């Protein structure tokens, strides 16, 4: 009797503690949501660095120095890529010029595609069949790029100060054929819901402001990285010490299995994304893109490649948008077509072909399989909850849950906890 009372009391205690911590964790997650991404990234970098630390230790390097070496390598990589990315973010004037250039080139290419001289003239067979529908779709795209009254006022000031080249001025006057939109009224709070919150929240006029905004929350990343690497299993041991005897071996085995499965999945995905990004970078350099642009598009394509189905499209669109506005493309190899849009298409197709036939089977191997429907719902749900980052983190989150639940279920059965 006494024993059963003790058991029920301890159950109530464990349940209350669990419920309290769940509430606390939920509240902290909500309040500190800006820190979630840097902390997750720090954990991710530490996680994938573990084999590196073990390799250095096998070579006889003490753990402290091995951590410093890895921290140095990661910092160098972030600094190098960050510098390239920040320098590639256009200033306000450059952004306006890019929009002018993109709108002009898109109009020109679209009219050539339909075989028209202007929107009122007769076109080719495509124009006869689906011309009206295509023009309607094109108008929607155009409205994203078209200047509003504010943009016109701002760009006029650059023209007055003679800061605009003749070529861009020519594009600008040509674009003025289209209507100028009224300035949209934007609610302040809504900006963060956009696809690229960081880029839109901070005006791209000041590169320093982009840097400072990022550093304020991301400063936590190296700390998470260092402390997780210094940890010799103390965190895990603490959790194990509070587990009742009956579940002790099962909990440890679950920890170990989950650790292995998630580690393999994350390292595999990272390697796969890096290989895709690298292939696209090399391909773009071969078709004559500037190295800086090729790096940026390679990074975007590589990172977004982690998003199933949609990722390759994001990489393709980024590459094609750049290909439309870029001028003076000079392919390194003679047999490569001069048209950069075709070039980007071929490069992305080759990268996707290699990804599906070589990288994935080689790198991911027996990784976690998800049903395509789960992937589609996960990515869509992720985009609703957290925009671009939500899409990116949706699948790893689902994989973590799937591995934890299936491993826990299997282990509980093997240890006769459930039947």
């Amino acid at each position, binding site marked *: 009797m006494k024993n059963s009372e003790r058991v029920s009391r301890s159950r109530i205690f464990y349940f209350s503690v669990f419920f309290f911590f769940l509430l606390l964790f939920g509240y902290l997650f909500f309040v500190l949501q800006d820190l979630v991404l840097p902390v997750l990234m720090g954990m991710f970098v530490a996680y994938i660095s573990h084999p590196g630390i073990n390799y250095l*230790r096998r070579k006889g390097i003490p753990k402290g120095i091995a951590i410093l070496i890895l921290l140095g390598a990661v910092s160098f990589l972030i600094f190098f890529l960050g510098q390239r990315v920040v320098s590639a973010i256009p200033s306000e004037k450059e952004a306006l010029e890019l929009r002018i250039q993109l709108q002009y080139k898109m109009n020109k290419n679209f009219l050539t595609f339909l075989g028209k001289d202007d929107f009122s003239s007769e076109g080719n067979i495509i124009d006869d069949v689906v011309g009206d529908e295509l023009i309607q779709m094109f108008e929607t795209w155009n409205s994203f790029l078209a200047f509003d009254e504010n943009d016109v006022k701002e760009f006029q000031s650059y023209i007055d100060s003679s800061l605009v080249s003749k070529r861009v001025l020519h594009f600008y006057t040509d674009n003025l054929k289209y209507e100028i939109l009224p300035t949209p009224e934007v609610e302040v709070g809504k900006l963060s819901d956009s696809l690229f919150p960081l880029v839109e929240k901070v005006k791209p006029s000041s590169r320093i402001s982009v840097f400072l905004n990022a550093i304020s929350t991301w400063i936590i990343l190296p700390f998470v990285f260092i402390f997780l690497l210094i940890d*010799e*299993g103390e965190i895990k041991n603490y959790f194990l010490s509070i587990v009742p*005897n009956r579940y002790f*071996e099962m909990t440890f*085995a679950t920890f170990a299995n989950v650790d292995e499965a998630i580690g393999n999945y994350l390292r595999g995905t990272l390697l796969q994304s890096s290989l895709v990004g690298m292939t696209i970078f090399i391909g773009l350099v071969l078709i004559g893109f500037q190295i800086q642009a090729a790096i940026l598009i390679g990074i975007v394509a590589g990172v977004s490649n982690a998003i199933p189905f949609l990722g390759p499209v994001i990489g393709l669109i980024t590459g094609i948008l750049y290909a439309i506005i870029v001028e003076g493309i000079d392919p390194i190899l003679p047999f490569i077509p001069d048209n950069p849009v075709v070039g980007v298409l071929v490069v992305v197709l080759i990268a996707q072909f290699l990804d599906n036939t070589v990288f994935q089977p080689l790198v991911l191997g027996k990784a976690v399989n998800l049903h395509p429907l789960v992937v589609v719902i996960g990515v869509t749900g992720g985009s609703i909850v957290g925009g671009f980052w939500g899409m990116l983190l949706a699948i790893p989150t689902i994989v973590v849950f799937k591995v934890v639940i299936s491993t826990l279920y299997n282990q509980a059965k093997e*240890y006769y906890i459930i039947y």
Partner: protein
Amino acid sequence: MAEEVTNKSLWKESTKNLWKDYSTELVANKHQTLVDILKKIPLFRTLGKRELKTISRFAHERVFETNEYVFRTGQPGAAMFIIKEGEVKIVKEISDKENLEIVKLSPGNIFGELALLDSSPRSAGALASMPTKVIAIFREELNKLLDSHPEIGGKIMLHLAIITGKRLKDTTTQLIELENEMHLLKEKINEK
């Protein structure tokens, strides 16, 4: 006033020292005890103090009450156990309430060591016959040790192979003895 300040700082200093001594002793004791216990285990006998300290970092101490199972027959093996205090019975579970005792183990003995090789089901159960403290060492952590400190992991694996080989020889000898006894018994029955 000055005296009060001196008293305060003295009290602060002594509390600090007391805590410092206590915490140092606590840490030293924990490691010393673990290292001392590990040193007595044949599996770790060839390891030096520093190597044993590395192992003690992933040695998990657990307390079991009387008649509490450490593990049961058929469960997948994940860890080897060393008895620190108390007593453990290795049992063959006949039914939910009945057990056949195979052997009684005392402090310093190890059991479930085959789990360090693979996760095949336990061939017998382990039951604490009095309040018992054990130290658990997991296969996965030993595998990680093989990765980060191959020299330590290699020594442990070699000794594990020696112990397993010796037990296999003992089992074979026991089997031969049993067979001989059965043969003698059969002869006696035939004579009668």
